[in-house]
């Protein structure tokens, strides 16, 4: 019987509309895949996004390298003047935010509809 999440490669799906870029992450975010995330963040910034939304709901794994990338992205956003929202933390993401007491990085979950 297979236990836990099946390892999957890191992926980022990007949609851009009205200056808002949405990056949905999948798979495993660690020191080997952080550069890929930072590449996408840099592209969105270069395209003049006024807001970048990083969706973490399908992120199967994230460690402190990923956390540090989020912290740097926040600093970049403040310096550059665009908004950065981390939304929809998966269980794996939530665990890392809790362990490091950095829950402030993630937005409150949207109220459940219906």
């Amino acid at each position: 019987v297979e236990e836990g999440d099946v390892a999957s490669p890191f992926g980022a799906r990007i949609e851009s509309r009205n200056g808002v870029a949405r990056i949905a992450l999948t798979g495993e975010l660690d020191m080997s895949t952080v550069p890929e995330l930072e590449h996408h963040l840099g592209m969105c910034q270069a395209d003049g996004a006024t807001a970048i939304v990083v969706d973490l709901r399908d992120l199967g794994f994230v460690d402190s390298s990923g956390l540090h990338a989020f912290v740097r992205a926040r600093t970049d956003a403040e310096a550059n003047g665009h908004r950065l929202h981390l939304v929809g933390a998966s269980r794996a993401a939530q665990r890392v935010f809790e362990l490091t007491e950095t829950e402030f990085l993630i937005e409150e979950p949207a109220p459940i509809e219906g």
Partner: protein
Amino acid sequence: VSSPQIKLPATGQSFRHDVLAYRGDEDFVDRTGSFIQDALSNDEPIMVVVSRNKIDLLRDAVGDDARNVRFADMSSVGRNPARIIPAWAAFVQEQAPSGRMFRGVGEPIWAGRTPEELVECERHEALLNVAFGDGPAWWLACPYDLDSLDPVITEKAERNHPSILDRDCRRQNPSYLGTRSFVEPFDAPLSPPPATVDEVTFGSGTTDGPSPSDVRRFVRDAASARGLRSERLDDLVLAASEATANSVQHGGGKGSVRVWSTASTIVCEVVDAGRFDDPLVGRLRPSGAATSGHGVWIIHHLCDLVQIRTFVDSSVVRMHVYAS
């Protein structure tokens, strides 16, 4: 500072780390209860981290005033002894701005501690002096039960405390070791791994050897095969991932991971050629804006016991998740 029950020598306002040796539960309640009531009558906030059973005894003894005492269960806070300093640091950070004295009671060692845990507990007691010695003034008393503990344990424990809190006086401890030994990394011996372990070596992951993802898969499979399940399995996989990332970034770029188990614990060990020079590594929470330094902190908070060593030509992070 004067107090009704305990006469204090005229010391400067600094961190006090006292050993409080007692004999049995009744003596514990008497001595520790006095220390607590003394704090309360001086309006000094106090946090007491002892076993659940002793919290109950102290609540009964202190009575209504117990509502002004913050209690925490040492078997949870200090299951991994490396998590005790973070708990005290949070309390200090909260209390120090008021400028008033505050106190703690912490009993990290009890009769059921394993030999491996005892080594880490002693290390913890010694590191308290490093972590808080130069900080704000507060007063921590560490009870040790002479009736239930091996005299070798209490003797070693005493040497990590700058002063001794007796029934009616507080005095300097002539056998206190000081903090000089902390210029060298911790190299207390580790028991050798068993003959049969699962092992994999890793490199930077770009050109040679398994990627970080492959290493996690290896740990997941090896620990799963040894009975680890669900969240505990995820915890060990994340801890192992942090340790291997540490090796790649700070430990010479490569290392090896071993997994084994005993009747009571599942162990994952990461060995590399690095050094742990900071004695408090992973025990002081990095700020929320930090972009490094969370790795060992996370490991300590995920595992039931962590043994970190730096030997002549290698460093070891041995992580335990208990079977129950």
